Structure formats: C-alpha cells, structure tokens
C-alpha cells in the first residue's frame, strides 16, 4: 500500500493537470510534452490546494481525498471524451531513435536514483521531511509543531526554517497518506521531475520550431546540474559516492521542483503570448505559483518574471495584456494562501525581505569584509581551507558567479549559451520572446547575486555547500529556452 499510495501521485497529478491545459487545437504539442506539462501542473495544483487547505484549516486527509478523486475522475473523463469528441491529434515527436533513447535513459536513471535511497540529506530530512511528517501526522503545520517554538519558560519545539514553503512537504505527505510515512517512497512525487524538465522546455519552444524544441530539451536534459553538481571534479570519489552526498539534486529537496515548475511557467507563458490562450496563461500562473510553493526563492523568481513582463511590455511589439493579466492574477491568487500561512509562522532566520535593502547592498558593495566563520577556537568543521580575513564579500560573490558560469562540469555549455543568447536578444530586441527570456535570466542572476551579497551566512561556507549553483539551477529552464530560441534557425521571411 505504501508504494501504491506513493505512485498513485503521478496519474492523479496527470489527470488534474491535463484538465487545466488548453485543447491541442489551440496549443499544439506532442504526447510527451503534454504528459510532462500535465503532470507538473497537477503537482503544482496539489501543492496550491494543499497550502490553501492549511490556510483554511481543512484536514489534509480531506485534501488528499479531494485531489485523488478529482484526479482519477479526470483521467476517466479524459478517456471517455477521447472516444466521444477527440481533440486535435498530437504533434509527432520527431525525435531520432538514439536521441529518444538517450532521453529515456536519463529519465529512468533519474527516477531510479531518486527512489534508490531513502531521504539522506540534511535539507530533505530536516527542512522538508520534518514538515511533511507534521502534515502527515497532524494534518496541518499550524499547530504546536511550528507555532510552538516560543514555549513556556523559553522551552519550545525544534524546527529548522519554519517559514519555508509547504509544497515539498505537502507532496511528501500526499504520497504517504495511504500507506504511511516512508523515507523512501515519500520521494515518489519527485521521481519524474528531472524527466519532465526537457518536456516543459520543448513545449515552450514548439512555437519557434521543432528543431528548437528538440534542441532546448536536450540542452536541459544533458545539463549535469539537473542531477548532480561538480560532476567528475574528483572522478573516483564521484563514482564511489554516486547517488549520495549533498551534490545530488534528485530526491526530496526543493531546488529541482522549483526549477522544473519555473521552467514550465516560462514555457506556458511564451506559448500563451503566441497563441493568445488565456487558459495557457492561467496554467503558467499556476506553474509559477507551484514554484513559489517549493522554495522561498520561487516567490522571488515569480516576482522577477512578473517584472520582466512589465519591462518587456514597455517596448514594441507589446505582449497581449489580457494574457499577462491572466497569468499573473492566477499566480497571485494561488500564492495568496501561502502568504496567509507564512504570516503565522515564526521567522527565525534568513529574513531576506528585511535584509535586502538598498542601504545594506550599498554597504556590501562599498567594501564590507566577509563575516567570521566561527567564534573563537570553534574548530574546523565546514572550513574551506581558505582564510577570508580581509576579503570583501562583493569580490567573493563575483568570483563565485564567474566560476559557475564557465563551470562545464556542472552546467556543460548551458550558461555560456544562455549568456550568448542574452547578447543575441539585445541585437534582436524586437523579438518579444527573446526579450522576455533574457530579462528573466538576467533578472534571476541579479536577484541571486543581491541575496548572496546580504546573506547573514559565512559566504565561503555557503560556497562549499553548493551555493550559488543550487540557486542558479532554478534558472535552468529559462536558460535552455533562451539559448534554443536564440540559436534556432530563424524562419525565412
């Protein structure tokens, strides 16, 4: 029952998501792209409904029951409708067999590695898994478990990052609802995420050309960081520890879910602008909101994408206002319950909203020295082996981003191609798609640079733990979209 209950997530998510997608006649796509987009949209919808349920104090069992029923009913209805009133046919996938096999192997490998081990990293266990268990056992997080940190006589409940979003914990709790909590099988909702990313990218590029769709999908799928950071930095150790260790992005963390949902939001918004489909725009808004449910950075990235929409609209040809409004109103509506919940949760650390002030940024840019690593003779755990005395935070952050952009072991050519795409977008600024994607990628990078300038953490220690690459992965989808759209052969006039 544990395995069945967990694996049930995917048909339910697909059914829910497929109902939200526009008809194929309006938004042409291949079966593969549709399956990826529908599954991701369903996952986002479950996260959004779950968060709304927490805000409205609806027991999680009811949320699980409602979404299961709706998802399975949708599967049945779609099957029935396909016989009675079929939609337009799927576009041919158009992939040579070796490439399809390559993508299949990557997808199966990622899913296998996700489930091969139980939760086995700090963030998935302590930040996400703990709150997943709270939802599983108590049906809500608005109880003593998170609200009781400030208890009687200063004795309270333990919780790391209590105000992290609830998307990952909710999906884990969903997977555990029927068969009980299992550190392995609660990861089932994340097993196909890596496989869905290229599908989402391809969907977004269908409007450009089939070659662009294939190219973008392969750029995303063959990016090592989707699976693991710093691949083969130490080949023997990398292979010995493969599937374990903090460098892996597969499993119960929040970075890959955010990256994939943000990619889908960008892809659907591009298609919505091209087709004028308000339904696709609303689905894009849901995907952005789903990303915001996975990590706090998702909310900031949605803000970046929204600002990019405003900026892109300042130049001709202007995007359709109704499409943009449908997207961002849906996103705001879906994110609102989370903001209501978050306002009730204790914020014990990482209050970037307060720290990201102009005065603070100027102070750091003006030459703030790096923070001390540990007080006194605290020992050497986490030590980087590099003395930071006298080093400036701005220099460390700039160097880290510079190193990452050209780190082929982690990104292949993805970031270099995206940077080249940004330059091409400047030259082809009249192309609204390129213009918007370049603003999203550039704005996202700028956002993360600002966050790291003001972070209260010791930056070299963050660097050792995979920052900024664990942030930059959130932009993998728009990078692939931008690079493929910029480099794709342009139709002859």
């Amino acid at each position: 029952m544990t395995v069945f209950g967990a694996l049930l997530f995917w048909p339910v998510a697909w059914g829910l998501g497929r109902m939200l997608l526009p008809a194929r006649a309006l938004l042409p796509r291949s079966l593969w792209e549709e399956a990826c987009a529908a599954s991701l949209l369903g996952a986002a919808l479950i996260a959004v409904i779950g968060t709304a349920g927490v805000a409205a104090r609806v027991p999680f069992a009811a949320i699980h029951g409602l979404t299961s029923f709706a998802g399975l009913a949708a599967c049945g209805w779609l099957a029935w409708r396909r016989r009675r009133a079929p939609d337009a046919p799927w576009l041919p996938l158009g992939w040579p067999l070796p490439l399809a096999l390559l993508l299949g192997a990557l997808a199966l490998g990622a899913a296998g590695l996700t489930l091969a081990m139980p939760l086995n990293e700090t963030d998935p266990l302590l930040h996400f898994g703990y709150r997943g268990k709270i939802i599983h056992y108590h049906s809500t997080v608005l109880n003593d478990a998170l609200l009781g940190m400030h208890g009687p006589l200063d004795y309270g409940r333990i919780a790391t990052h209590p105000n992290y979003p609830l998307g990952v914990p909710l999906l884990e709790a969903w997977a555990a609802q029927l068969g009980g909590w299992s550190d392995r099988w609660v990861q089932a909702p994340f097993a196909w995420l890596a496989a869905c990313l290229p599908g989402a990218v391809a969907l977004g590029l269908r409007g450009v050309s089939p070659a662009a769709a294939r190219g973008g999908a392969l750029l995303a799928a063959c990016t090592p960081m989707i699976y693991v950071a710093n691949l083969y930095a130490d080949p023997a150790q990398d292979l010995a520890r493969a599937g374990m260790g903090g460098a892996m992005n597969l499993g119960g963390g929040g970075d890959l879910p955010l990256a994939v949902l943000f990619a889908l939001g960008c892809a659907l918004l591009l298609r919505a602008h091209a087709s004028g489909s308000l339904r696709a725009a609303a689905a894009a808004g849901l995907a952005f909101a789903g990303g915001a449910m996975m990590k706090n950075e998702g909310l900031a990235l949605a803000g970046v994408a929204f600002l990019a929409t405003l900026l892109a609209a300042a130049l001709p040809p202007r995007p359709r206002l109704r499409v943009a409004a449908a997207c961002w109103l849906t996103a705001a509506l879906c994110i609102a319950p989370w903001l209501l919940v978050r306002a009730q949760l204790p914020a014990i650390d990482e209050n970037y909203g307060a720290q990201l002030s102009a005065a603070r940024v100027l102070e750091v840019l003006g030459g703030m020295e790096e923070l001390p690593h540990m007080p006194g003779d605290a020992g050497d755990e986490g030590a980087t082996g590099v003395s930071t005395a006298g080093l400036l935070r701005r220099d460390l952050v700039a160097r880290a981003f510079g190193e990452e952009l050209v780190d082929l072991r982690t990104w292949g050519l993805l970031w270099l191609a995206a940077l080249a795409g940004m330059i091409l977008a400047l030259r082809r600024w009249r192309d609204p798609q390129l213009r918007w994607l370049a603003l999203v990628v550039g704005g996202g990078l700028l956002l993360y640079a600002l966050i790291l300038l003001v972070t209260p953490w010791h930056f070299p220690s963050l660097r050792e733990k995979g920052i900024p690459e664990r942030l930059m992965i959130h932009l993998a989808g728009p990078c692939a979209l931008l690079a493929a759209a910029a480099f794709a052969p342009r139709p002859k006039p």
Partner: protein
Amino acid sequence: MALAWLVRAQMVCAAGILIWMAAGLGAAARDGFEPGRERYGQLPVDAAGAVAPILSRLPPSGGRVLILGAGELAPLIEGLEATGVEVRRLTTGDPAPAASGVDVLVVAEARPEFLRPDFARLAGVLRGKIVFDLTTFADEGAADAAGLEMVVYGRPQWPAWLDPEYRAFVEHVRARVPEDAAILLVPSTAYLSVLPRSRWFLHLNYALSPRRLHLWRPELASGYVMQYFSWVEAVNAAAPWTGAKYVRIKDRALTRLLESESAPTRSLSAVEIEAARRIGAEWVLLFNPNTGFRLVDWELLPLDRVRRWSE
C-alpha cells in the same frame, strides 16, 4: 546550425551523467538500497593530532598503547614514545593476543578485523578500558556493549544520521515513548564545542516525530550556524546543570558503561521541572553534548523518576 552544434557539445555531458547514474544505482543495489557509511570515504588519519587526547587518558607514569594499523603513523608513535609510553603496533590479524596489559587501544586503519574485533575478548585482556578510533568507522556500539569506552578522534565524512549508535537510540526511544508524547531535552554538562555536528537534537526531532521534542530556546538552536553558536554560549552561560545532583543508575537502557564519567543522569532544576509540567512532558532526554553520538552520553527516563532526584 549553431543550435545543432551547441546541442551536440552539450550531449557530451550525457555520457558522464549516465555513467554516474549507473554507478549510483549499482552501488545502491550492492548496499541493499540503504545508505552505507563506508561509501562516504574517510579523511586521512590525524596521527599527530591524536597524541594529546590519547596521553590524557593514560596513567601519569606512561602506560602502554597498542596501535592497530599500517600506514604513516610515525607522528603518533614518536609522539607517544617521547613521553615514555610503551607503544605496540599490529598491522594485521586478531588484536586480542597483542592487547594484553594495554591501557589504550588505538584503531588507526579501517580493516574489518580492527573495526569489528571481538570486543568482549579485548575487554578481558585490556588493562584500561579505552579505545581510540581514528578512522570514524569502528563499531562503537559493540565496544560499549563489551564495557569499553570508545573515543572517536577524527572528522566523519558520513552524515550524522547514519551513526549506528544514534540509530539504535532512535529505535529505543520509538519503542518506549508513545507517538503523542512530549519529551524534554536537557543538557547535563556544558558544550565544549560548537561544531554543528553536535546538533543531534535536530536529527532526533525528525526521526522521533510525531513525538514532541522540547528544547530551551529552540529558535536559536535550530537557526543558522551563527545563531547556533549564540545558543551554545547562552546555554553554557545559563548552565542549567549548576547545582544538579548527578546520579549513577544501574539500569541504563543501552549503554553498559555504568561507571563512566559521561553519565548524563542528573536532577532537574525547578525551572526545568516547571517547563516539563507546562509542556506536558512525561519523558526527559538527558544528554552530554558531544560531536559524536555515544550511547553513554544519552539517557531517556520518565519525568517522574528524574523529578524524584530533585526532591
């Protein structure tokens, strides 16, 4: 054309990714699809740094040390011999015959016969009851069960939650404490280190959920590392163990080191008792802060029993 070349170049990465995936899946299958500590590897043994801690556990007259392991251990051997310690060394085989009359046993190489020797036999022939593990992989629980105190000197590369003693303790608490119960965590001595690995309460909080774990000022203890450093300072300054009565109990649940100085069993302060009452805690988890998880440092007891020590 440009896109095609770009994609071809990017696809070179796919070969590396697939090899990495195959290695991960193969290793997971070999390990029974459960994470194993061994795959995380080991840092080189800190032979020079281990001299002082070992000397601190030897009699003032010198004593006798048996070092198990090959490799570059000259700084350790010379450092000990320079202070008059008699050093024996065994590079392979059963350590028990060579351990007769030895004060401190040092595991310096991760060979199976050194990591998991017959600790009961060793306990019978060792003069002192101390084992130093420089590899971070020795079977600490088996040593404890044989009445030997193990001191880990090294920086484990494996994550804290894979510690076998921690896992055994989690199972012990799960078996005794109902899921709806509350547990009060209280340190019994000062924190001597602020290393984040000593935050065992975070891992216990996850593993024991839905049981409710309560700690003093958790908003600092659970925060980022600089907040945790502040918490350690605050705990050490508040020193809730001041004036406590330390009690040696004979029925400790998991450890067999009944005479150890590391027993955390102590009476509670009036504030701790009142906090337990208000929280509704029926259980107390007493611990001596340590970067390693040792059964001897932890004890779970019913609140009523601990409260009697305070009367």
